[in-house]
């Protein structure tokens, strides 16, 4: 096994040839392909509208792409996520499907041997390999905060990624800076695209991202040399074009207004919506709601009852507090509520009613009082209020008038 491994690392061979040489049966390969389709991301281009046999046939012709995996300010979580796959398992992936030339965590060698392997691989496959970058790159103070074999990360990146055919920035750290870029960002951590915007880069943000996203990207590149359609943030649309909220298994609870109010309450135990606990699902583009982690259903934050923290989004992850409730920007219709045929319209303000009553009462009262001042006797000369014939006329009052009359 070992000899063939070493031997194969020098020669670019197709997957079929590799499998033949390593004694992997056709049947197991087809099984791998079908599991690729089960566990693969929704809309994976290479499995789209094909049977496992067709996928196997297609993939069989693919030349194993060389992959160089370099890591900077990382936590190795993205590598760990790759380990949690069994369709294919990591061994199959790195040995039979791709040609992993350099990976600090997985390779046997270390020290000078490792350095040697990197230089060799970069030289031999220059312009042909896929460079997977894990972890953010420090830029402050001339990038002293991360060094690989004595060279600053920026220099390594320029060298290794510069000669790659395509760069896959796996994880939020490599995509846009990740945790190290959170306030106060002491190392000036940035993503790959911030330093090499002109290169072909695919960002796979997530903390960690789903391993099948990486798989889909690498295999498509391997098969056709093309990369999946990307959005404006260079994320593959097949995995990042929708937000968690759109496909969340707890969406029915959201639509019906059943929210968890406190961790551990009855709603939480029943699995209700976590929006009011600060779930960032509505603003987070990722596929976690359909593809869970560890190949087990419900193994993802919301599935276990923790609100989504928006780990793929630069504007949310490690910036907006985890339990801060966000505004929903694209409301949709809840399916269980319909307006009635005759909706109620208008309200009556009690103060207004009182005001009208007051005014009406005042007018009625004033009217009554005024009318009482009038004489009830039909007279042909009368002054209101006098009540008797021959009463003093209005003119007799002029003695009291005084100089107050105006013009």
């Amino acid at each position: 096994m070992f000899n063939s491994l070493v031997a194969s690392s020098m020669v670019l061979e197709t997957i079929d040839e590799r499998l033949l040489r390593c004694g992997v049966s056709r049947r197991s390969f087809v099984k791998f392909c079908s599991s690729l389709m089960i566990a693969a991301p929704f809309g994976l281009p290479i499995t789209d509208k094909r049977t496992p046999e067709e996928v196997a046939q297609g993939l069989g012709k693919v030349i194993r792409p060389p992959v160089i995996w370099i890591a900077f300010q990382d936590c190795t979580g993205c590598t760990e996520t790759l380990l949690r796959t069994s369709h294919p398992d990591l061994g199959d992936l790195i040995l039979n499907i791709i040609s992993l030339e350099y990976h600090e965590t997985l390779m046997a060698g270390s020290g000078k041997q490792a350095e040697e392997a990197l230089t060799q691989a970069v030289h031999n496959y220059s312009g042909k390999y896929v460079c997977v970058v894990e972890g953010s790159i420090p830029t402050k103070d001339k990038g002293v905060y991360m060094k690989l074999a004595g060279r600053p990360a920026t220099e390594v990146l320029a060298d290794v990624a510069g000669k790659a055919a395509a760069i896959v920035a796996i994880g939020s750290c490599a995509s846009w800076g990740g945790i190290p870029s959170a306030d106060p960002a002491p190392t000036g951590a940035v993503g790959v695209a911030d330093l090499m915007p002109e290169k072909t880069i695919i960002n796979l943000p997530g903390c960690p991202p789903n391993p099948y996203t990486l798989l889909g990207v690498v295999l498509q590149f391997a098969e056709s040399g093309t990369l999946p359609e990307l959005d404006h943030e260079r994320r593959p649309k097949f995995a990042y074009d929708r937000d968690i909220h759109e496909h969340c298994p707890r969406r029915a609870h959201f639509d019906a207004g059943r929210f968890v109010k406190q961790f551990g309450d009855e709603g939480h135990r029943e699995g209700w919506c976590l929006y009011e606990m600060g779930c960032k699902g509505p603003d987070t583009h990722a596929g976690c709601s359909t593809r869970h982690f560890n190949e087990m259903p419900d193994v993802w934050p919301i599935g276990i009852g923790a609100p989504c923290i928006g780990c793929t989004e630069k504007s949310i992850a490690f910036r907006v507090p985890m339990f801060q409730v966000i505004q929903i920007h694209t409301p949709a219709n809840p399916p269980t509520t319909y307006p009635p045929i005759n909706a109620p319209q208008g309200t009556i303000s009690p103060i207004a009613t009182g005001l009208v009553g007051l005014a009406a009462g005042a007018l009625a009262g004033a009217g009554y009082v005024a009318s009482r001042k009038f004489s009830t006797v039909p007279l042909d000369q009368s002054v209101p209020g006098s009540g008797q014939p021959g009463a003093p006329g209005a003119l007799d009052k002029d003695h009291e008038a005084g100089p107050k009359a105006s013009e």
Partner: protein
Amino acid sequence: MSSVFSRRQALLGIVGLGGAVTAAPLASVAAEEHPAHPVAPPDAVSMLYDNTICTGCKACVVACSEANGLPPDTSRSGGLWQMPEDLNSKTKNIIKLCEEPNGKDFAFVKRQCMHCLDPACVTGCPFGALKKNEWGAVTWESSLCIGCRYCEVACPFDVPKFQWDKWNPKIVKCEFCFDQRLKENQQPACTGVCPTGAVIFGKRVDLLAKAKARIAASPGKYFENRVYGEHEAGGTQVLYLSKVSFQDIGLPKLGSASLGHYATMVTSVIYKWLSAPILAAGILGSVIKRNWNRHEAERPEREKQSGLPDQL
């Protein structure tokens, strides 16, 4: 002046109208503008809604909001869901649910502007901000609207909605996606998105025939075996087929005469060429002139008696 209707008096009577003469365009009211049974324009477009097919998915509500650039009405949901309770200043199209008292049967209804053949709102709008165009869609123009809300009072279907919460308020109502889509030869957003074909778009003559064909094919399926909107309020360009009573789904019971006809029956005759006002001015003017002359003739005597100038 001995003769009552001398030329001078008649002339003076007319001149006495003064500014009323500037209301000359009122004279262009003709009974032909509001016939008792209006005729649809030849290119009249139409929508046919059949609630036996509608599933209440509300895709038309969302599509309408998007096509018209309307903000979602989330007031009832605290910002979470778009759930308008009725047509309003943010909602031009809505799906409502009618639940029958027996608790089992239900029916949906799609409500929006009916685009009447002789719309009451168009009749009442003082400066013609609401107009019916060559395809029959009733559209609103902001530069002519004074916000008097007469259209809201006039519409028998309570369709136009005023933006009570805006300082520059508009009248919001379905306009058949005229600017956004009809002009580009596309069908309106709601009919375009309906997944089941419950609401379809076409020419009024065609859809009326189609509706009648459906009735003929399944007698007893549709309420009263007729199409609502064929004759209501003179006829509308949105037609309804319903499995339950039209009144149950909120469509008012209306006669077949258009409201515009009813409202202008008398005024279109008496104001034709301003005949009634001119006649009134002439008659009143001559009588008043005669009385005035007599009043003036008696003035010196009154003033002598009182010793003071006469008051007018």
